């Protein structure tokens, strides 16, 4: 791969490229920390509150254009991704930190890309300063001035929606330095964090109604755009694939454990709901300076945003975590599962009588009505 570039550049130029990143950001005299990103639904190790001062946090995002399979029927999809996953990785920093992202577009890719961070200020969120052609990289630094969960996505002019629905989106979480708080100022912590990135997909079909496949991402563009324009997704999935977070890949927890669920949708509204559970504390808009709402049944994630919900499991079992447009959840794929271990609490729920024959003369609705007269 590199050989063609070296040939073009000459050895001296290649050396120059290698040294360029070191030139960046030497003007800030702050400690640096390089963070290894982790594929969703997981997140890299991080402090929930910190006593340390602001740092420059270094992340590396490598863009990967690749074919993926998006459902059990084996439907192939030409995806564009940050670091190979849909969504891209969750990045966690603290308010006042500087986020320094190296965006790499390897020569094996076909297309120019860039990145727009909703958490960043100016320059189209960084989109104006990060255009990279295949074979290039760019380093952008921005200051995390607001706390919350914020979407990032690719935003090449004219092709933004296509890149986003092809997989190029993720989330940055900026935590308050002293950690999360309830409305009353009580410190809130989580034992685990899961990042669920929802993605509406628009896969073209042939005359017979079969999903079409394409050799390259470029070839899929015209047909895909046509499907996109009708605004009806063929798939609505969590983490890139129908069933990416179910079965063997179900998220896990324990009774008594507090889980933070970050839910992002870079393009379209959604409404997460934990079947059998609740949102104990929910930042529906994802912005931690606003007090969290309590005891929600379903929360609304606006297209182009990420929200955060805390829940302490009180009952073991399997929980479905869905987009509560149930057609999208069941027919189109927007379903995840939690497998929760622990001891059943009969006080919270008990099957008083198992299903059986309807008993005459007792506890039927008609009978009850008569009795109350």
């Amino acid at each position: 791969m590199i050989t063609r570039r070296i040939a073009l550049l000459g050895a001296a130029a290649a050396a120059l490229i290698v040294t360029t990143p070191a030139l960046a950001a030497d003007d800030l005299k702050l400690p640096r920390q390089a963070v290894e990103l982790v594929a969703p639904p997981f997140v890299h190790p991080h402090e929930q509150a910190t006593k340390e001062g602001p740092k420059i946090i270094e992340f590396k995002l490598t863009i990967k254009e690749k074919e993926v399979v998006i459902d059990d029927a084996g439907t192939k999809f030409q995806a564009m991704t940050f670091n190979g996953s849909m969504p891209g990785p969750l990045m966690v920093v603290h308010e006042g930190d500087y986020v320094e992202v190296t965006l790499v577009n390897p020569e094996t890719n076909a297309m120019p890309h860039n990145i727009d961070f909703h958490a960043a200020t100016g320059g189209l969120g960084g989109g104006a300063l990060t255009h990279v052609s295949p074979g290039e990289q760019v380093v952008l630094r921005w200051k995390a001035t607001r706390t919350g969960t914020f979407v990032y996505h690719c935003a090449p002019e004219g092709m933004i929606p296509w890149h986003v629905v092809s997989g190029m989106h993720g989330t940055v979480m900026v935590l308050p330095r002293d950690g999360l708080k309830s409305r009353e100022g009580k410190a809130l912590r989580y034992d685990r964090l899961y990042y669920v990135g929802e993605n509406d997909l628009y896969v073209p079909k042939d005359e017979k109604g079969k999903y079409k496949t394409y050799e390259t991402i470029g070839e899929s563009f015209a047909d895909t755009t046509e499907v996109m324009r009708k605004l009806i997704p063929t798939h609505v999935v969590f983490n890139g694939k129908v069933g990416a977070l179910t079965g063997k890949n179900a998220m896990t927890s324990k009774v008594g454990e507090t889980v933070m669920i970050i839910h992002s949708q870079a393009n379209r509204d959604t409404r997460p709901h934990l079947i059998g559970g609740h949102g104990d504390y929910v930042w529906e808009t994802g912005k931690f300076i606003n007090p969290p709402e309590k005891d929600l049944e379903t929360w609304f994630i606006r297209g182009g945003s990420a929200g955060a919900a805390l829940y302490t499991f009180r009952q073991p079992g399997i929980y479905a975590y869905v987009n509560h447009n149930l057609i999208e959840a069941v027919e189109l794929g927007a379903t995840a599962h939690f497998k929760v271990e622990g001891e059943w609490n009969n006080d919270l729920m008990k099957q008083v009588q198992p299903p059986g024959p309807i008993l005459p003369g007792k506890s039927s609705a008609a009978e009850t009505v008569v009795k109350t007269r």
Partner: protein
Amino acid sequence: MLLAMKIKAAITAAALASPIALTIAPVAHPADSAITEIAAKPFQYRLAGDFSRDGKPAAAPLRDTILPAHIKIMNRQVTAGEYARCADDGGCPKIPHASAMADRPMVGVSWRDATAYAEWLTNKIGVLHRLPTDEEWVFAAGEKIRDEPLALVDPVDPAQAWIARYEAEANRARPDALDPQPVGTFGINGNGLQDLGGNVWEWTSTCFLRMTLEPTGNARITNTNCGVRVAQGAHRTYITDFIRDPRTGGCAAGVPPANLGFRLVVEDKNWQALQRAIVAAFEPH
């Protein structure tokens, strides 16, 4: 260590054949024929692509240059009827929403479609047809060219140049009509070519390059992206090669081109025979 010469070679792309010996007398009424021949003479060319100097954005250099040979280029854009011939023949992709009238310019073509057409015509006639390089297009366009050195982005303060650039682009005249117009609507230039800088932008074979200007004045290529090609018209723009509708995926910023079409250059010594062959190729079966 690429010198100016090599960059030129890269810019003019691999397709450029060796210079052609010119044996044919100039055509009397170039506007009436499908192909116009333009004799090489010195002209000024602003290199296409992104330039930097000492790691900072720099204006693209304006060079005095001359094409290695005379150029033969279609005096109008390829029409919808001509493209349909190629599509019917299986040589070009059928384009779903091509609605243009047969005698109007073909629009809604990607670089890949245009290249397929050139290949088809080359095989059909036995004479090399290809897209012009950006340099050739600029030369052929002559006085129709609008040299627009875009404002430079200072990495320390990106905003000022960005706003200036936006305003310059917003001030560009927009074509009154978006649909393809009858051939000739947008006039004829001094070289006898029709409709340059109208509402149809034309694909060229030139790849998007990022270049570093060295103290010697040489430009060294730091990135070649042939997935993005130069399209020419009322302004120069860079468009991904599979884009057919520039409004949904073209320009880097500002006002996108209205339509994407193309015209071809031909490389052949036998001028009259070529004209006959082209006419024959499009006669009804």
